[in-house]
């Protein structure tokens, strides 16, 4: 199945929850924020939020930045 991950098409074998997706991507869940179909997820919702075909996922973290 195909999802849109950070603006790009991304292939997954099967539906999974957000915690499993982060694990699959080797991303530490404590360091990121996740948006699922334009809704920003609270961390406790990572386990209960299912990622299905066609879903839009944004995964962001903090990078160096100042005033721009």
């Amino acid at each position, binding site marked *: 199945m195909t999802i849109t*991950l*950070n*603006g*790009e098409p*991304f292939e997954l074998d099967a539906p999974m929850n957000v915690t499993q997706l982060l694990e699959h*991507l*080797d*991303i*530490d869940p404590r*360091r*990121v*924020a*996740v*948006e699922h179909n*334009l809704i*920003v*997820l*609270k*961390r406790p919702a990572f386990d209960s939020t299912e990622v299905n075909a066609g879903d839009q996922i*944004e*995964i*962001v*973290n*903090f*990078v*160096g*930045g*100042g*005033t*721009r």
Partner: protein
Amino acid sequence: MTDTPLAIAGREFRSRLLVGTGKYPSNDVMVRAHEASGAELITVAVRRVNISDRSKDSLLDHIDTSKYSLLPNTAGCYTAEDAIRTARLGREAGLSNWVKLEVIGDERTLFPDNEALIAATRELVRDGFVVLPYTNDDPVACRKLEEAGAAAVMPLGAPIGSGLGIQNPNNIEIIREAAGVPVIVDAGVGTASDAAFAMELGVDGVLMNTAIAEASDPPAMAEAMCLAVQSGRLAYLAGRIPKKRYASASSPLEGVVGR
């Protein structure tokens, strides 16, 4: 002389200098500059994780969050909607409801879009955020941001990254006189005297990134800025003499030899 701490939304800070995390030559230099700055609030940007290249370590590996509080920004956002979305993501990533709100209106100057900024401030305040908006050196915009619920107003001293110093000290003073919330000069500082000058105008703090990060020796410049902010603050509290057009002798006029 004793000073009251900088208080924003009920939180107190000993340092009146806020710094960024962008443009440093290395993380090690950044860490040393942060230490030398004495800053307690540090701005960070919110960006997409690089999915294909996970090799780079996280910025958070280089910021001791027991010592520093993170201030996520919405830099790079050109609409209220994008800024609000970014602020909400930043809140979940950093587990803090503070945001340095930027809504940019022009690519070349990076001047803010005040109309969108005020709308985004109102919405984020309603959503429980502590909003610190980056704005023009415009007293009317600052008043409207305060009315929209901003916890501080952050007028620019000059365009972001320009290092031009405080371009309109008169407006900064007018903003400070009218404001009921802290005023933090954000952007435009080039060197220590600019930071001292901003503080001498009576503002509550200064936020900078490029002036430190792109200096030849960032930790040394961070120390200079730390001292300049303290020095400017102390000079403001001490009360400077009025400016006069002509000389006023410091030594007694009586008893001059040969007169």
